[in-house]
């Protein structure tokens, strides 16, 4: 009796195994028929598979003596709509460009304009300055005619727009380009402040434009971005290696001690040679990081290299900032051209080289329509419910990534620090028993979905909140995606209580919005953590 049962069980197991193997074979056949590389296709959940495969070895591109810092906590959100590296538009000129004061944290609502509407400006020519910090000049990203100063509530300036020259760009000429060897740090700072390049250098804490009176503990640059659908920054430095090195030299001179460059040690693809060789420059150190998002965030890298402490400041910039600074010293021009990625499922993913602050309308020509007509229930003048046709947003355009970008119109402009535009589906729909059914097409960290077993599913993301806002209930969620020695939940509690001492003690100064973005994504209670963090930081900054 028992032997019979065992034999039946073994046969059943063999049958299931045969079925799985057959399925896998068919999958590979189908893949090869449609011309896809199916060599790593498997019907067995790959998280189970990972259990049996051994430890990952150190990639070959990392030099032998270099140490790799493995960050375990974090999460890569696999989204569909990656930018295709083969599709690259070498240079795109939009009709208009603008600088938005709202891109700069802590800027007063009405900066002082230096040029009048209707005048011609050159790329690099001073446009405006913040009345609280008159030394820092914000410059025109491109040459053309200043056509509009857009104002919002209470006459707040929301954008300063330039109608771009469509031919050759006219560059603002500087009196003198200081040479790195001959000039002192003060002279360099003074030059950068007046040139319009200074806002590219930001500081932690607070993520404001770096304070020119401080000497930072160190300057940080991250050469990779792990955010969902983030652009490959190797493309940004391609052909601009010289400017990259020059920029690093300049930063080394500006920093009190060291420039730290964060390198990606977790990707199959090697970082650009220029990035790896950064440490050949005096005063520059490279650090290898391996791990899921947010390992590429400069805030995480600062925390693991030389953390921000109460009473100290750290400066940082991005790859584009370094190249801009380098070009300024090398060629004497204010060149804001950068490679950006167009990502998301609602457009064809590609790379485009544009100047900073470009109007995105022409870039997004192949995007799905922003709005569609829909019938909804609404009350008429008699209070009766009737059907009514309204325009409903179907696509959201985001300047930046889906975790910490800013929503813009299709007629809007690229943000000052952004190198990515994402177009995702708007999630304004109802889903029957959406909270209950086990298999849904939404990205998630939770193992309550069977899809959690398959880590390489690419999701079509939409902006539905997937639930309503609730009080904090779960614990340990935020910690699991924030690779820092910080208790995020208690930071937020301190913010809610307005307890300044506790906020500072718990390390709020080390955090930026992009660092807690993943915490906000996974939050079961749907709390607006980035907004709360900014409020907490503002309380501290103004205290």
């Amino acid at each position: 009796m028992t032997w019979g049962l065992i034999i039946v069980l073994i046969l059943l197991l063999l049958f299931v195994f045969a079925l799985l193997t057959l399925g896998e074979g068919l999958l590979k056949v189908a893949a090869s028929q449609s011309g896809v590389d199916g060599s790593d296709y498997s019907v067995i959940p790959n998280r189970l598979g990972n259990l049996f495969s051994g430890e990952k070895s150190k990639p070959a591109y990392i030099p032998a003596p270099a140490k790799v810092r493995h960050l375990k906590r974090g999460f890569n959100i696999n989204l569909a709509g990656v930018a295709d590296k083969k599709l690259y538009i070498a240079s795109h000129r939009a009709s208009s460009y603008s600088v938005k004061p709202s891109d700069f944290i802590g800027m007063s609502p009405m900066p002082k304009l230096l040029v009048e509407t209707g005048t011609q400006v050159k790329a690099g020519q001073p446009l405006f300055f913040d009345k609280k910090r008159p030394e820092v000049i914000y410059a025109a990203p491109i040459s053309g005619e200043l056509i509009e100063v857009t104002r919002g509530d209470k006459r707040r300036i929301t954008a300063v727009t330039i109608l771009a020259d469509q031919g050759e760009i006219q560059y603002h000429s500087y009196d003198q380009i200081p040479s790195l060897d001959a000039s002192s740090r003060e002279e360099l700072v003074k030059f950068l402040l007046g040139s319009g390049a200074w806002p590219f250098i930001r500081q932690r804490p607070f993520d404001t434009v770096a304070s020119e009176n401080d000497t930072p503990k160190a300057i940080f640059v991250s050469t990779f971005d792990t955010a969902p659908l983030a652009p490959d920054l190797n493309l940004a430095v391609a052909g601009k290696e010289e400017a990259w090195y020059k920029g690093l030299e300049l930063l080394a001179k500006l920093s009190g001690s060291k420039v730290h460059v964060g390198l990606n040690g977790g990707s199959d693809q090697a970082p650009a040679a220029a990035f790896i060789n950064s440490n050949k420059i005096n005063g520059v150190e490279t650090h290898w990081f391996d791990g899921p998002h947010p390992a590429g965030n400069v805030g995480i890298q600062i925390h693991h290299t030389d953390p921000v402490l109460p009473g100290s400041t750290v400066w940082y910039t991005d790859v584009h900032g370094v190249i801009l600074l380098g070009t300024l010293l090398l060629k004497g021009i204010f060149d804001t051209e950068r490679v950006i990625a167009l990502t998301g499922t609602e457009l064809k993913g590609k790379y485009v080289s544009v100047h900073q602050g470009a109007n995105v309308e022409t870039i997004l020509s192949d995007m799905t329509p922003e709005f569609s007509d829909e019938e909804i229930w609404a009350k008429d003048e008699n209070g009766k419910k009737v059907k009514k046709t309204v325009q409903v947003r179907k696509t959201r355009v985001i300047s930046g990534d889906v975790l910490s970008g800013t929503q813009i119109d299709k007629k809007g402009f690229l943000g000052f620090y952004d190198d990515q535009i994402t177009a995702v589906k708007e999630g304004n729909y109802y889903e029957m028993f959406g909270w209950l059914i086990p298999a849904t097409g939404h990205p998630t960290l939770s193992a309550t979905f069977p899809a959690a077993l398959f880590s390489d599913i690419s999701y079509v993301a939409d902006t539905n909140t997937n639930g309503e806002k609730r009080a904090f209930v779960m614990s340990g969620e935020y910690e699991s995606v924030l690779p820092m020695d910080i208790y995020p939940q208690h930071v937020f509690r301190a913010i809610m209580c307005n307890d300044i001492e506790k906020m500072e003690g718990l390390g709020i100064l080390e955090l930026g919005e992009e660092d807690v973005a993943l915490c906000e994504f996974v939050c079961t209670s749907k709390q607006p953590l980035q907004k709360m963090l900014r409020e907490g930081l503002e309380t501290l900054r103004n205290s």
Partner: protein
Amino acid sequence: MAFIDFWKKIEPKKENKFAHATYDALFTFFFKPNLTTSGKGVHIRDAMDLKRTMIMVVIAMQLCYVVGTINIGYQHFMALGVHSSFFEAFHLKLVFGLVQLLPIFVVSHLVGLGIEFYFAARRGHAVEEGFLVSAALIPLIMPPGIPLWMLALSIIFAVILGKEAFGGTGMNVVNIALLSRVFIFFAYPTYISGDTPWIAGLDLENKVADYNWGHLMFNPLFETIGWSTFQDGHPIIANFSGATPLALGYQSGWVVTDPATGEITGGILSQFSALQMWMGGIPGSIGETCKPAIILGGVILLATRVASWRIMLSFALGVAVMGLLFNAWQATPYMNVPWYQHFGMGGLLFALVFMATDPVTAAQTNTGKLWYGFLIGVFGMMIRVMNPAYAEGWMLAILIMNVFSPLVDHFVIEGNISKRMKRAKQYAKGS
């Protein structure tokens, strides 16, 4: 989308707060709302929400419900000395269990959710899902014969004073389900402690079976089919005590043998085998008896990462450490119980899987969770073994640690702060 149109049409006016809160709770039960993220901050959100978290816990305890229902009937007929084989007269055991359990389940939900809806309407916010889990847990930790009015009173006390007074879901200091149990424990101790309450449907004064109309209305049906029926007034077996393993353990320890003959004369083993205690064929609270069902629930909670493995692990460690200590000490008969056998007795596993892991009342930091679980294990064992009045400790131990978990967290947090401040001071000195 006809169904959603129907729902949109019947939406009550916002001025009618209670009706609107109720409508909103039902609507969001049927449909995931069409809310979208704001233009700043994250643009996409995880598919997980609180409703799903809570329903996972409820799903995890379903097997406890099934086994608990049958065990109510099984224990009852064991006391009568009839149908003593497990599958014999299974229909009677099932119906008896359901007649006992369903009213408890319904009252627990109606009373608790009623209060919850009322407060949601009063405060003008959506009904939060926290009570779904509490309402499902409360029947499982009650004795099968608990009077319904007492249950209702305890839930009113727990929800209003334990939760709404502090601001609703996520704000409570102590576990709501345990608070309602502890209310009965202190207000009506004879109904939830001692030997009598763990087997339902018995008239202990006259030593006969005592059924009500709820049971007896099934008799005609069973008669028609030709199955056995409930026999009102059937005498209880002669040596019936109703004592749980815990009570036996307190009186005489794990096992007492006659030194001359080697016969078992007392202790837990004289009435229950270790396997029987594991499988759940013992008197006790409704959901706590069957250990495999609880372990399955625990596996679900751990696999879906809804509950914290840290708390479960350190809880078990605390029990083991304390159990070993008692085994070495041997001061009372109860201390003779082998430490690993404690896991099979009483509500330990149920407390470990479902009660201690409540994320709101547990410690919030990872290190804190380890201490929290460990201390529950230690205190619970202390109360279980050393307390003469009540031979079970988890309810009280968890409530104690609920109150102290902010303190545990405080030490962890202060450690982090002082580490950072020290680094800052060093930096200030260096520069």
